[in-house]
């Protein structure tokens, strides 16, 4: 039993009990709402203005791509050479192209092609990358060696250069073919990232605990390893969406992306380029649209990374 305070030496300080109430050892705080790591990520994103700005822009761009009719009533293809490189006027706020077509109308209609290529390429390359990277990282051995070297081969070819080489041999180019070609050269980056994340997730104690429970190896991969390794890939996917849109425009600009009959921002930039010095506006508008779109996705990627990768957040 503790003795009376009089026996204590002079510099023995004991805090007032009322000021320092003690709680039960290791009690669960039941007042807080349960929160998963996804809830945390959402709360972190929600508090960033950048998330809302880029989110609204992305939604707007997607809406334009899906329902161009809501934003534009003028034909994008009808040409009147009287209006060649004409300046803006009522009803045609962005002026006319060299062919006398309405720039605003083409801008709205072209969004669909650019966005389709971007989203398709991202989906294809992410899915391929996740599957290949996860299998290589998880099973290791010769599979890993073979897959990693194949990835390295594709990795060593610059995406645009590789795409140029293949595109010139394909006669009928659609948004899907462009997306597939871009994805073929971009998946190794996703696969590498996934492989690394899978290797570190597979070495954790919870994986060992599941093994000791008798969970099968493949099931552990699907249920525990992949969900814990997916975050960096989501980040890459968001960022690469923007770069794929740029790549499509680059290819179209070079005349080997989408065929000239398809309205896309890249094609329009390409055809306006010849008259840049006399009529810069027909080039400026699609370029601005492209920049805003890519910037939105990059900003979103930034926010997503901060939310999903707390280590990167700490460094900021």
């Amino acid at each position, binding site marked *: 039993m*503790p003795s009376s305070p009089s026996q204590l030496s002079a510099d*023995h300080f004991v805090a007032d009990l009322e000021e320092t109430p*003690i709680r039960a050892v290791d009690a*669960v705080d039941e007042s807080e709402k349960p929160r998963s790591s996804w809830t945390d990520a959402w709360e972190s994103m929600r508090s960033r203005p950048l998330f809302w700005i880029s989110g609204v822009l992305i939604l707007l761009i997607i809406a334009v791509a899906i329902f161009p009719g809501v934003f534009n009533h003028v034909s994008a293809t009808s040409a009147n050479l009287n209006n060649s490189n004409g300046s803006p006027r009522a009803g045609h706020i962005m002026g006319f192209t060299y062919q006398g077509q309405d720039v605003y109308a083409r801008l709205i209609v072209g969004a669909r092609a650019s966005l389709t290529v971007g989203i398709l390429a991202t989906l294809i390359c992410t899915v391929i990358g996740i599957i290949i990277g996860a299998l290589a990282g998880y099973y290791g051995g010769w599979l890993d060696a073979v897959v990693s070297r194949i990835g390295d081969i594709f990795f060593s070819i610059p995406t645009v250069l590789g795409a140029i080489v293949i595109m010139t041999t394909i006669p009928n180019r659609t948004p899907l073919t462009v997306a597939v070609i871009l994805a073929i050269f971009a998946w190794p980056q996703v696969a590498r990232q996934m492989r690394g994340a899978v290797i570190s997730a597979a070495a*954790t104690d919870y994986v*060992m605990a599941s093994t*000791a429970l*008798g969970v099968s190896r493949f099931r552990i991969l699907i249920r525990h390893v992949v*969900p*814990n390794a997916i975050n960096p890939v989501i980040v890459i996917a968001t960022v690469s969406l923007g770069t794929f849109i740029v790549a499509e425009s680059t290819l179209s600009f070079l005349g080997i992306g989408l065929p000239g009959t398809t309205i896309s921002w890249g094609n329009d930039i390409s055809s306006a380029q010849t008259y840049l010095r006399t009529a810069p506006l027909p080039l400026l508008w699609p370029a601005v649209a492209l920049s805003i779109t890519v910037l939105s996705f990059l900003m979103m990627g930034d926010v997503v990374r901060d939310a999903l990768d707390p280590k990167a957040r700490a460094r900021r």
Partner: protein
Amino acid sequence: MTTTTETSTTTNFEAQKGKPLLEIKGLNIGFKTQNGYVEAVRGVDLSLGQGETLAIVGESGSGKSTTATSIIDLLPGTGKVTSGEIWFDGKNLVTLPKAELSDIRGREIGYVPQDPMSNLDPVLSIGWQVEETIRANRVATGRKEVRAHAIQVLKDAGLSDADKRLKQYPHQFSGGMRQRVLIGIGLSSRPKLLIADEPTSALDVTVQRRILDHLETLTRDYGTSVLFITHDLGLAAERAEKLVVMYKGRVVESGPSQEILANPQHPYTQRLVAAAPSLASRRIQSQISPSVTHGVTVSDVGSDDALRIEQAHEREAAASKAKDFIKVENLTKVYNIRQGGFKSLELKAVDDVSFEIPRGTTMALVGESGSGKSTVAKLVLQLESITSGTVAVDGQSIGALKGRELFDFRRRVQPVFQDPYGSLDPMYSVGNTIAEPLTTHNIGDRASRQARVRELLEQVSLPVSTINRYPNELSGGQRQRIAVARALALKPDVIVLDEAVSALDVLVQGQILNLLTDLQSELGLTYLFITHDLAVVRLVADNVCVMQKGKVVERATTDEVFSNPEQAYTRDLLEAIPGANFQFGA
């Protein structure tokens, strides 16, 4: 410096001993978080005299490290001193300009960080890192002088062939040696104050003792005051004259350490002291009598389960007299380590180990890091393949089990791992984590599994509402209880506890040990308890195996090992426990 001046400074130390060097008054520290402002340290007062040693003890999150790092302005992240004063040698460090503070930091206040493994830069040589400190603090100038000083620092820190070791890199040093280097760096400019933040908690007990002895000698010679941050009451009792007990950011008790620990006044200190395991402790006895509780655990389960439980009881009855429920014979595990090229090196992690565990008892496997104890655990769990020898559980040899048989074996032997932050999938809710063994083995339907999860949560004394929470919301001890619940879900016979309480604060550790003891008598569990901490062994084990370099060097009942250790190695281990022979009060 001549001999005469040195003697005069020494006498100066003697004269000044006891005069306050560091005084903290009403210190408040806050952190900005997503959910607003959090006060981590509230109104802390403490004072440390010249040449004195003071220990701050408390559980994780009590603010002890925050207080210490605020002294040298190294608060992490958004931490900020909001009010209060830190007087050091006549200067208020809180208001001091950054430039002057960085001049004091390192030169007058040394710092020894916690983790020797991550606090040395792996790409720079040891010599470079020591010399950097010496140059930064202008202790010596000129290439040769700096080099000579660095060698001296390392020699003082207890590295004998210091001149050769200067060119080596951190990975060539053991944990203990790295900690010596860090202590050397911390003391290199003969600071007036040394802050040591859990300097030895990552090290083995025998290494810990050597390092602490050495630190004590050095600081006594230099007249340095030492501020220890520790969670180990035994260490505080043994090494510090003064003690400050912190709880939730406040000081709850402070004064002479021996007096506080022998006669704690504040209820929190009393609780801490009561939970501190020492060699004088006895094995924890369950508060529950087994006959009463058997009925309770069987209730509320599906008919399928009832059948299995019946079978389990039959098994139990058949084997209850078996002295060798788990029988390990001549167990050996060899790892092939790739040496680059086509060469490989054989490493014997476990070397001819034999022991038996009677049903319903606890066998402790004790040893320092690298002794092979965790490998034995993995072999018993069949997470690694056996090189030679046998492991038999209930008469069944487990080395050759495959497919269905192995799957069934997994129901009977379950693990709980050390790291409470790594052993639960962060993406799984608590309910799903505990239900995973049930779904994997296809036991019951959704509703009965839910019921079982609730029952298990109750068994490990967690509120049922925990079911929807995620691991990141829970403390280390709570996570460890979830891991125990998951291990219990399949009603196993054996639980392998691999350092299961080592990462926990002493109070939480005591709570988990009590829980494990209760569960053992309630469910007739057999434990293989792997630990480096002999004081904990005293509390839970019936039998002990001491392992060293892959071999079992001593095997006996717990009482025998503690009262009459036969091997010199065991005696070393026992003596190295900090505060082992200190009589705690309360």
